[in-house]
């Protein structure tokens, strides 16, 4: 808990992060930056969990544990994503999403 800063302020920051992540996901053209946007989303979730836990329910640790699991799974996700991105890069020499779309309706 930080002196002088309430739950409210932290939630504003995490919401901003969440929607910045969503915005980045839809506007960025580079696969790696899209991946970074997803990390922003997941980290905003982590902030939420930790803040709720610390401010509202300090006796239980459920929120902290949840955020630990989220971090671990985000790493696994990034590992697989980067493996596929490298595979794509070997095939077509670019990671621009607009060039990575061979299929059309």
């Amino acid at each position: 808990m930080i002196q002088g800063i309430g739950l409210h302020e932290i939630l504003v920051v995490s919401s901003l992060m969440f929607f910045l992540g969503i915005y980045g996901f839809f506007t960025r053209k580079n696969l790696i930056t899209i991946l970074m946007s997803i990390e922003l989303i997941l980290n905003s979730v982590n902030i939420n969990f930790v803040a709720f836990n610390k401010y509202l329910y300090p006796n239980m640790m459920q929120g902290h544990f949840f955020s630990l699991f989220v971090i671990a799974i985000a790493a696994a996700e990034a590992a697989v994503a980067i493996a596929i991105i490298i595979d794509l890069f070997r095939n077509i020499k670019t990671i621009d999403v607009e060039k990575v779309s061979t299929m059309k309706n």
Partner: protein
Amino acid sequence: MSIMNLNSFIYMRHELVLVAVILLFLLAEIVVGSKNKNFTVNFAAGLFLLATAIGFLPIPYGEMFGGMYQTSEVNILMKNVLNVGVLIVFLQSIAWLKKDENEGRITEFFLLIVSTLVGMDYMISAGDFLMFYLGLELATIPMAALAAYQVYSIKSAEAGIKLLLLAALSSGIMLYGVSMLYGANESLYFADLIQNLSNNPLNILGLIFVFSGLAFKISIVPFHFWTADVYEGAPMNVTSYMSVISKASAAFVLMTLLFTVFKQLSQEWTYALYITSVLTMTMGNLFALRQKNIKRYLAFSSIAQAGFIFLGIIAGSQMGMSTVIYFLAIYIFSNLAVFGVAGAIFNQTGKESIDDYNGLYKTNPALALTMTFGLFSLAGIPPVAGFFGKFFLFTAAMESGFLWLTVIAVVNTIISLYYYLLIIKAMYIIPNDQPIEKFSSDFYMKAGLILATVGILSIGFFGGIHNYIFDISFGILN
């Protein structure tokens, strides 16, 4: 909540058996090596058959880890249905796996599929949002690796990255909802949430986010954009796995979540589901009409089917839940029959355009017949199971008073008849100078297709199946 003892691990039988299967796959890969294709596929199929059989053994139900993991008769039934579906997928994919392009990577395919299946089983049995999230991710991340299985193919890699990024986005959205539920209710145990969940805005926001996250997995209409591309790019057998098993498990989980955790908010989610259901059925059907590629066609057909599944969820009654499970089982068998035939043809000729099916009946009558059963079942034409599935769904929705929804669904069924019959017309009526040549599939493919067809025919004719599911289901009201 008793102190955990080793006896209670028996509740986790399905997952433990699958984990053992994964370890044995790895062991076989080390001991035998990847060169011996026949051994690898026989071993994998046999082992999985054994695992499926073990799943059917009678066993007590209960909970463990303080309620984080729970089994009930419905959960077990769903897991068994998924196991049978995966067994059929395995049988159908062996001919493709034996090709030279998959040299040395056969075990990988089995490993990844069984890993996702373990995830789905945990997701189905979750009694807490943490367990649920872990299961969901375990069901998703290996799925992306599966979609990108053909490393030399740009399309496959594209499908993999699209699936992974959108799945990550959707689980991020879902987690944001879960964090709000945590903030509002202190606990993430389903048992606590069922009692505490009130009508406050934070809970409703949480519901919307969790619903959106899961809607991505089932590809409900506002969240369906990834489906067609991923289905087209991924290898045929992976597509069939994704559109059948993965979707059925996600739909089942969404239903149990809405019926238990979000029971108090049923007023709110009924309308959300009403609108998305209508949109999903209509859009899925309209897009399916103009597809030329069989995989994209089946992608949109499966989107439309998801809309029908929602009818039972909206009904909210015991009848609704039982019909959803019944419909999912039928959907698994019908779609696997259609995908099996499409896969057999793709393996043999590399063709996946609907025009290539012209005159199939002349050269390959057995395949054409299997495809016909599958398509009739998807469309809901009387002799096969799909008819009973749709009939019960409509009945459930009508009983709960959703007249207009049922009318829209019936209209959509008629639209869907048109495009399902297009393929049947192509196979039986349209003449073709160069039809697909007569060929014979291997034993496994035949077994897979026969199993799927037997499923389609038998589920409809044995009335006891639906009665059994009805008895173990629960509605929102009790």
